[in-house]
């Protein structure tokens, strides 16, 4: 059982790092109260419980995934707590009532996420069971994607209509749609990959796949364009399209699909830029952020200032000014961490994401059945692509989108959905390793 022992060691390291981060933050901000200690302790305990759950239900699962995801989650919690403290200080200075801490909700969602990850391990003994629900997942995924368009419960937050608001709480069904569509893409491509790869009908000298094979691909493209048009979010549409093309490429092994996807993306991107003002705004801010420093570009510019102020080693947890960036707890949590942990810290965190993606792809390569391969790969791709899009957006490498940073951002739907995905990866990796050791 050396895998579980490695996992235990790594998890201990992750929790230690999280503890040090909390202690440093509170020391730098001269905080004395005990409130959040319970929250952090609870999360740490839950992570340990998850480790025990993995020992029980998926003993051969990849040992790196849980500690890495836990560390990212803990760092996110530390930064959210730090920002809560800044909010409190501001409220005290202004004499307004103390706002309710985002940390508590995020910690609660973390506990729920970890529990659901273990529930996945408990309930889903074989990932191939999901293959039965391929088309159900497709429907569920599309429904979840379209739900924000509903009249009463659908809501536009920050310009993007991606949310459902029920009472005081808001959810992002799109995050769960990611999981459903990952299952759908995997299942669909297992069935169709041979016909997509090899069956060609000659049109005007050019060999193209049959319409009935191409159909779903074009539907997928149109759905993502639909998200862009009706829900006004560049990121989500790019994410889905990217996930699909990536898995399609892996399924068929043909690079032409990547090229095809790139062409479709360019067509979609250019037309959306030509047609939609909100896309034009985003591109304008991306190209000339400082011209819009006081208006729409304020968030991006403040984020850039924060990163530059952080420098190589950062200002230190609690010593920076991440709270100057709007939505520092969610959209721009990467710049908050970049400001206080510096280039070194932020690059280390990007490496953590890279490790997660790599473990996912490794699982995909180890597992023998094609559904498992494509599902693991799809989940890894979506995690990697989302991180790249978000990190690129806040650092002005690509235009800003409304995507959340997986595991870091304050936001229940994203956190829970990502933990379920982690649970799936753990399950698939357990099966993969078991089959490998048996053969």
């Amino acid at each position, binding site marked *: 059982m050396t895998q579980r022992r490695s996992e235990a060691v790594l998890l201990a390291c992750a929790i230690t790092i999280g503890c040090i981060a909390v202690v440093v933050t509170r*020391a*730098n901000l*001269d905080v004395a109260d005990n409130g959040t200690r319970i929250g952090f302790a609870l999360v740490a305990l839950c992570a340990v419980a998850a480790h025990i759950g993995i020992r029980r239900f998926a003993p051969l699962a990849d040992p790196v995934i849980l500690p890495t995801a836990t560390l990212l989650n803990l760092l996110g919690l530390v930064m959210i707590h730090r920002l809560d403290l800044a909010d409190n*200080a501001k409220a005290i200075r202004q004499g307004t009532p103390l706002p309710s801490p985002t940390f508590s909700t995020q910690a609660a969602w973390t506990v729920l996420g970890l529990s659901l990850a273990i529930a996945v391990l408990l309930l889903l003994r074989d990932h191939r069971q999901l293959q039965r629900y391929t088309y159900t997942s497709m429907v569920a995924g599309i429904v979840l994607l379209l739900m924000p368009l509903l009249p009463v419960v659908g809501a536009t937050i920050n310009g993007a209509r991606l949310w459902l608001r029920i009472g005081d709480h808001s959810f992002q069904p799109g995050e769960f749609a990611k999981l459903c569509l990952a299952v759908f893409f995997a299942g669909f491509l297992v069935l169709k990959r041979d016909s997509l790869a090899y069956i060609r009908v000659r049109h005007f000298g050019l060999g193209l796949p049959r319409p009935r094979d191409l159909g779903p691909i074009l539907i997928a493209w149109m759905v993502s364009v639909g998200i862009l048009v009706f829900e006004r979010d560049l990121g989500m549409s790019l994410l889905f399209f990217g996930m699909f093309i*990536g898995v399609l*490429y*892996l399924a068929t*092994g043909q*690079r032409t699909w990547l090229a095809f996807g790139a062409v479709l993306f360019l067509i979609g991107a250019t037309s959306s830029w030509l047609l939609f003002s909100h896309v034009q705004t985003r591109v304008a801010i991306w190209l000339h952020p*400082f011209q819009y*420093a*006081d208006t729409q570009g304020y968030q991006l*510019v403040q984020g*850039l*200032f*924060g*990163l*530059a*102020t*952080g*420098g*190589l080693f950062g200002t230190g947890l609690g*010593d*920076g*000014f991440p709270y*100057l960036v709007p939505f520092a707890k969610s959209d721009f949590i990467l710049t908050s961490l*970049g400001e206080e942990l*510096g*280039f070194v810290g*932020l*690059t280390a965190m*990007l490496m953590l994401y*890279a490790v997660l*993606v*790599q473990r996912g*792809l490794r699982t*995909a*390569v180890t597992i023998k059945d094609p559904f498992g391969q494509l599902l693991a*790969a799809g989940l890894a*791709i979506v995690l*990697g692509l989302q991180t*790249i899009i978000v*990190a*690129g957006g806040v*650092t*002005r*490498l690509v235009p800003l989108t409304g995507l959340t940073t997986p595991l870091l951002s304050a936001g229940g739907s994203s956190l829970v959905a990502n933990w379920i995905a982690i649970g799936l990866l753990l399950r698939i990796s357990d099966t993969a390793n078991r089959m490998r050791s048996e053969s």
Partner: protein
Amino acid sequence: MMRPYRRLAGVLAVALALLVANLSWLQVLGAEGIRGDESNTRNLLQQYNRARGPIVVGAAPIATSARAKSDSFYQRSYTDGALYASATGYYSLLYGATGIEASENDVLSGTDSRFFVDRVQQLFAGQHQAGGAVTLTLSADAQRAAFDALASRTGAVVVLDARTGAVRAMVSKPTFDPQDLAPNDPVAVRNAYRTLASDPAKPLLNRVTGRAYPVGDLFDVITATAALASGSYSMTSPVPCADAVVALTIALQRRCPEAFAEIGRRIGVDALRSTAEQFGFNNAFPITAPSVASRLPIGADPATTATGAGVRATPLQMALVAAALANNGTLMTPYLVSDVRTPNLAIVDAAAPTAFGTPVAERNAQAIAEALQSRTDAQLHLIHGSGSPSWAIAYSGRLAIAVCLEAANADASTVATTVLREISVKQ
């Protein structure tokens, strides 16, 4: 089967590399440019949270930073702000800094490389970066004497210790109170600055080091030195004076412009410039910020230059001339900072007097001074300049002084005498 996965991993790796490269630009290579943007308020906020080091005169701090509570902002306070303003300058979050606050900013803000060990200690002790202490060479008594003697006149007084080069007093009037520009309230500071900046009397200008005035016939000292140094003249050489021909020493006593013009023609402008530079001309002594160099006119006729026409010098420069004469011809480099200490008050650097050069041969120094001086006093040697602005340089014992007053009928000599007497009494 593996290849597509490898390729995809490769694509993601390339994307990661691009992200890291972009980040390295934002946070490391190009960080200074981005961070320095004026709309980045973080720079301001960082200063609010830092304990700036004190500026000390004698044993007492004249500028300190303290904060009321542990989460409020640090506030700079000045004791006798107006008295020391010419040396300390101001420190304002909106308008930057001048004077010692600017030239020793690295020490005062704690970022000086000499504090590296202390910063590491602070890191482990969990303290925030504190600034180091700067001790000035000023003497509180001398500064007060100069300040009071200058009264409400417009001009500058600077007193040096001729044997070491230490600046004992420097006052520029009209002056300001740096406390007016120190508060954390941007509105108050903006109003105060606007008032000061729009005042036609220019209280923010440091006339000691920041303005070069026409020297006029005070330049005679340099011309006389150059004459003797050239070897073409001795104290008894015949020179024209009015309509007569007299010995050089008499011409110096009478301050005859014809004599100096003749000297200038004979020795040439290069000799004049060379001697002037040995006295410190064309050199902006950076004892504080801002400081300008004193200059000879370029391409002018040596005869007119020798009489001082077109020559501009700062009061500090002329004090150096006096100091050279006081110190038997050896000029010491002026300095205002006597030591620099860590936040824990351990000395990391102490100034050591260094010689700038020997502009005047020892045997000539006293002769020139006695010839040019306008007072018959065993201890106090004073040379005045006529015209506007009113100049006077003097020395007594080891103290050298320069006074420059802008007003038309001002009397710099009186001021110089008063100050030196005052200081000598206290010592």
